[in-house]
């Protein structure tokens, strides 16, 4: 989540859902919260009951819109322009929170003279290198500083972009002080003025032209946000994948962060940017990642060339001020947790044992490589790419190139059964007997059948206890990975090959219990939490040492087993504590529910207002105190603390700098490092779009990742010949009744019956234009494939007026596939692979398509139909 990471320091929601009840205005945008996070949505309802204004900006009128005071439909993929318009409005009406901005953001910092904004570069920032299709970020830095390129990664090439995006930990700043600061913020080159200029062209009229809403409606939203922010009031922004699944997804979140910083809404009750995460544990799976490019706690994965030693790794990755200034302690403690006694000062704490990344191994990169025969085997554990990933056909063609595939799941999901009944079998493109992939299906235990934790959307870990043993051969992930590890170690036992040392030396000694030798999940939690030199449990990452005397499997989780107590298992009921419910579960870091909460007090440490009181400086006790949350600040650092010139790490954070993960302790209106596509958000059109970019000559995000090849053909976009063949905007989304790729819902009777068939939502206008009948069938076509869906004609979908044309949306939920109780075509058959280069997320939310009445042709004729479209459009491979 580099959008939040670069803006505030940590890649997690800044607040928690319960806190929404304190908001005076909630802007839900790029999220269908009521449908996808219904339990958390109760706090939005609660806020509404207390008088808050709830606004939903979404291309479709959804169950969230139904509860909102105002629903505003906009064209998918235009949120940067919309939020940009609000930022511009904030400047135009002078509604920004001056004192907050001055003390808590990098607004006063002066930029380098050679930085060029998009204004001068027709859509490009300075540093664009057309050969590599990448930016060199030297010119983006703070004036008179120089560390950005190293800290932000010198390797800007697209193929190794991941870690520098995630590890947005900032540049080196001596004593945590940017060298050139103008507290009046009047300097033309200071960030505040740069931001103001950048957004000057995002006028209400421009917003209307780009987004397809009226100027008045836009102004209602802008006004509501401005009026409900300041000392007395706070507004919150809620987003999820309606913002992230774009070729400029990260910049959507940056835009919201800038707006919230200007309005003084971060770190305060009722404020914040609430990222609503996906799967029950998706936040957990980035914190202690299942990603290829980071280590636990967002420590970057080392590179083969630039990180030969631990010292260089720390030197090149860490700003030395702020919380990241202790990177060495975090890293050494991690290595000690993993390799125990084998990790010593002399062998660099086994730093060499860590794998190195030498390329983009993200999901799509891997699948494309697989398609080219470059991957031999795959474990699909808790994932169903044949339904969930863009371009389903490409997924299947790739899987067919594997030697072996292991699928661990509850049921025979499509990723395990494509070999027998996929559309390619039906069309004759594949024959079962020709497929060489050997497929193993391993039944998985469900969460009720194993101990463990979920990290939910607000960084909160909650422990679940096993209710019963898993049936038959079903086993937990922990069981599988632990015993698989043992089997491998057994085989390697007598090896003296040095490359086997990491596996043989790893600490792999979890106690087992029960009839199936289930490893003790609490033992894993204890390892994650970490131990001090005397073997006692650590309280927090402040206690981690760089000398190898402490261990911690994830520094941000350090203290999760504080006092020998499984903190996530705390379940004190809400009736026995206040609304913060601090004794329910445990949130990283240090059990903090609103992070950066130092910002809820003014620079002197007093609450901004009585109504919005949360954390404040108790001058008698000389410490930070709060309504019941952990202060996200050194507990006894006085508000007036001024760090010495040579201070390092936390010592370098001044008493009025709440964003302690950033080297300068500020929230970043402008992100000098951390993002591949620019320090400020700029509106670019989606990869496939029926319109031209009215803001810049550059049509699309120049850094987006495209993979043109015969299996991944793109529709031509506006301006290109043949674009009219795919005149409509296709958008995909979820329904409350199903879950993602459907493996967990299409197979559950009670859910299956609620949404039994794949359908598309279209406006009455589009229906009459294309002869679509409510309740009948439609065929949706792109250059990738054609699918059939039942037709839902509804006024909830509205055509928008854009650039003098009517824009029609075809909306489809993406949950269906060929297995389960209810079956249907998958929306992902339609989408091509095109990614945001910061995080390699696919543009699921926008593409172009055509729609026609009736069911799709079967077998070979489906191919012929798609072929015909491609020919007419001149689709580009």
């Amino acid at each position, binding site marked *: 989540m580099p959008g939040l990471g670069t803006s505030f320091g940590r890649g997690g929601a800044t607040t928690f859902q319960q806190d929404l009840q*304190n908001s005076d205005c909630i802007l839900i945008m790029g999220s269908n919260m009521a449908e996808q996070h219904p339990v958390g949505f109760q706090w939005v309802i609660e806020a509404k009951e*207390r*008088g808050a204004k709830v606004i939903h900006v979404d291309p479709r009128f959804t169950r969230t819109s139904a509860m909102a005071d105002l629903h505003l439909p906009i064209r998918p993929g235009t949120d940067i322009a919309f939020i940009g318009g609000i930022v511009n409005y904030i400047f135009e009406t002078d509604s920004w929170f001056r004192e907050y901005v001055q003390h808590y953001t990098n607004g006063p910092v002066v930029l380098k003279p050679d930085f060029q904004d998009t204004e001068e570069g027709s859509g490009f920032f300075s540093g664009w290198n057309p050969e590599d299709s990448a930016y060199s970020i030297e010119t983006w830095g703070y004036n008179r500083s120089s560390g950005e390129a190293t800290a932000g990664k010198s390797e800007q090439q697209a193929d190794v972009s991941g870690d520098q995006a995630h590890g947005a930990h900032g540049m080196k700043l001596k004593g945590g002080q940017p060298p050139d600061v103008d507290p009046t913020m009047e300097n033309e080159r200071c960030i505040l003025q740069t931001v103001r200029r950048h957004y000057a062209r995002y006028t209400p009229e421009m917003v209307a032209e780009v987004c397809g809403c009226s100027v008045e409606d836009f102004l209602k939203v802008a006004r509501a946000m401005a009026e409900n922010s300041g000392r007395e009031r706070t507004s919150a922004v809620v987003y999820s994948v309606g913002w992230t699944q774009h070729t400029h997804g990260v910049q959507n979140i940056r835009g919201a962060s800038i707006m919230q910083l200007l309005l003084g809404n971060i770190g305060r*009750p009722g404020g914040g940017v609430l990222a609503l995460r996906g799967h029950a544990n998706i936040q957990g799976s980035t914190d202690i990642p299942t990603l290829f490019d980071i280590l636990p706690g967002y420590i970057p994965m080392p590179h083969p060339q630039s990180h030969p030693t631990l010292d260089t790794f720390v030197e090149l990755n860490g700003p030395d001020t702020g919380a990241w200034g202790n990177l060495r302690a975090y890293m050494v403690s991690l290595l000690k947790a993993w390799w125990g006694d084998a990790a010593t000062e002399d062998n660099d704490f086994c730093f060499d044992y860590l794998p190195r990344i030498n390329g983009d191994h993200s999901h799509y990169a891997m699948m494309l490589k697989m398609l080219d025969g470059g991957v031999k085997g795959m474990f699909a554990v808790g994932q169903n790419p044949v339904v969930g990933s863009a371009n389903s056909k490409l997924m299947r063609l790739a899987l067919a190139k594997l030697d072996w595939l292991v699928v661990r799941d509850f049921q025979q999901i499509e990723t395990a059964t494509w070999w027998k009944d996929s559309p390619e079998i039906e069309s004759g493109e594949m024959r079962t007997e020709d497929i060489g992939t050997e497929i193993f299906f391993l039944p998985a235990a469900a969460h009720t059948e194993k101990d463990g934790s979920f990290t939910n959307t607000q960084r909160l870990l909650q422990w679940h206890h096993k209710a019963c043993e898993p049936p038959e051969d079903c086993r937990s992930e922990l069981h599988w990975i632990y015993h698989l590890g043992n089997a491998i170690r057994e085989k390697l036992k007598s090896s003296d090959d040095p490359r086997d040392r990491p596996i043989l030396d790893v600490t792999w000694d979890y106690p087992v219990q029960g009839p199936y030798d289930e490893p003790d999940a609490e033992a894993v939690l204890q390892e994650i939490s970490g131990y001090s030199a005397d073997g006692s449990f650590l309280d927090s990452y402040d206690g981690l040492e760089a000398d190898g005397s402490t261990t911690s499997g994830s520094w941000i989780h350090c203290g999760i087993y504080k006092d020998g107590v499984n903190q996530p298992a705390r379940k004190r009921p809400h009736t026995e504590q206040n609304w913060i419910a601090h004794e329910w579960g445990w949130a990283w870091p240090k059990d903090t529910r609103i992070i950066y909460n130092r910002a809820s007090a003014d620079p002197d440490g007093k609450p901004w207002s009585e109504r*919005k*009181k*949360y954390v404040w400086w108790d001058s008698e006790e000389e410490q930070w105190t709060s309504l019941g949350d952990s202060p996200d600040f050194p507990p006894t650092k006085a508000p007036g603390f001024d760090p010495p010139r040579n201070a390092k790490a936390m010592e370098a954070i001044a008493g009025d700098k709440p964003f302690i993960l950033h080297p300068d302790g500020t929230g970043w209106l402008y992100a000098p490092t951390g993002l591949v596509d620019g320090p400020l958000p700029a509106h670019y059109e989606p990869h496939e779009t029926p319109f031209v970019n009215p803001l810049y000559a550059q049509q699309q995000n120049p850094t987006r990742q495209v993979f043109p090849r015969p299996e991944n053909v793109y529709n031509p976009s506006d301006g290109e010949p043949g674009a009219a063949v795919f005149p409509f905007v296709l958008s995909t989304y979820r329904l409350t009744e199903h879950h993602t790729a459907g493996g967990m819902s299409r197979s559950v009777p009670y859910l299956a019956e609620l949404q039994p068939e794949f359908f598309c939502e279209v406006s009455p206008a589009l229906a009459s234009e294309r002869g679509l009948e409510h309740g009948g069938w439609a065929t949706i076509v792109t250059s990738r494939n054609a699918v059939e869906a039942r037709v839902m004609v509804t006024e909830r979908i509205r055509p928008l007026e854009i650039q003098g044309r009517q824009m029609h949306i075809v909306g489809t939920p993406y949950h269906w596939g060929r297995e389960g109780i209810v079956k249907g075509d998958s929306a992902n058959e339609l989408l091509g692979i095109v990614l945001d280069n910061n995080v390699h997320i696919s543009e699921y939310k926008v593409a172009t398509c055509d729609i026609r009445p009736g069911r799709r042709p079967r077998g070979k004729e489906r191919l012929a139909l798609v072929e015909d479209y491609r020919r007419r459009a001149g689709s580009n491979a």
Partner: protein
Amino acid sequence: MSRSDSYYGQPVIKEPTWTWEIPMYFFTGGLAGASAGLAWLSELRGDDELARRAWASALGGLAISPLFLISDLGKPSRFFNMLRVFKVTSPMSVGSWILSGSGLATGVAAANAWTGMFPRTSRVARPAAAVLGLPLSTYTAALLTNTAVPVWHEARGSLAFFFASGAASSAGAAAVALTPPKYAAAARRLAIGGAVSEAVTNEVMRRGLGMHAEVYKAGPSHVFDNISRACVASGAALIAARGRQSRAAAIAGGALLGAGALAARWSVYKAGFGSAADPKYVVAPQRERIERGESRGATRRDAKVSAPRRDLATPATSDGR
């Protein structure tokens, strides 16, 4: 898209789940009930030929009736669940007891009439069967009208008379058909009188139904109604004209009348389905009732308390909870 006066045109109430056995049961029950009365009265008058045959049709009707019921219920034991309780609020409960009682009494009476068995018991059983036969013929109307099905419920004053008429005509018809014409005068009077009454009460019921009468003019209900009218009219005419002379005419006329009474039950039965299936029959009259100010007020817009004065947003942060 929803229609504003209903939820996608879906029914508001459920159609009955009853199957074909139920109108058959209504018919056989009515036939048996009135036949028992006819039998006992004829006995009193000394018309033993007629009486014995009437007892036979009463017994016949009462023998088949429970079979229909059990067939509808699924298994015999389920019938006995009915006799766990006696509830006046449930015409079906009351009816079950009537059916049981009258079945018992009629059984004894008929056996006595044909074989001379149970001489003593039958002294009570005969009048009991005759008396129980009357509500046996009309409780089925109570059963239907005591539901939420508008076309039935709105006929709560008249349907019983229609059913009684049907019972009379069918009992008469059966006796006419079974009895040599010279002993069957009373049966003929009953058959023709019942038929006339059927026509009249049907008309009265329709008039009283208002908009609900529509359902009798459509679908299966309409078909059965036409059949019924035709059969009743022709059956009655045939009996009136030739019933006295010709045994064949008597049999044919009786059969026609019986068929007419049966079709009438089917018409009523089917009307209930049509009435339940279309929400307008539920909603429109209730709406009118509200507009006339005769509603008991299922909805209310005015609160019984006054709204508390609320200052802007009490933040959760300030009240500790």
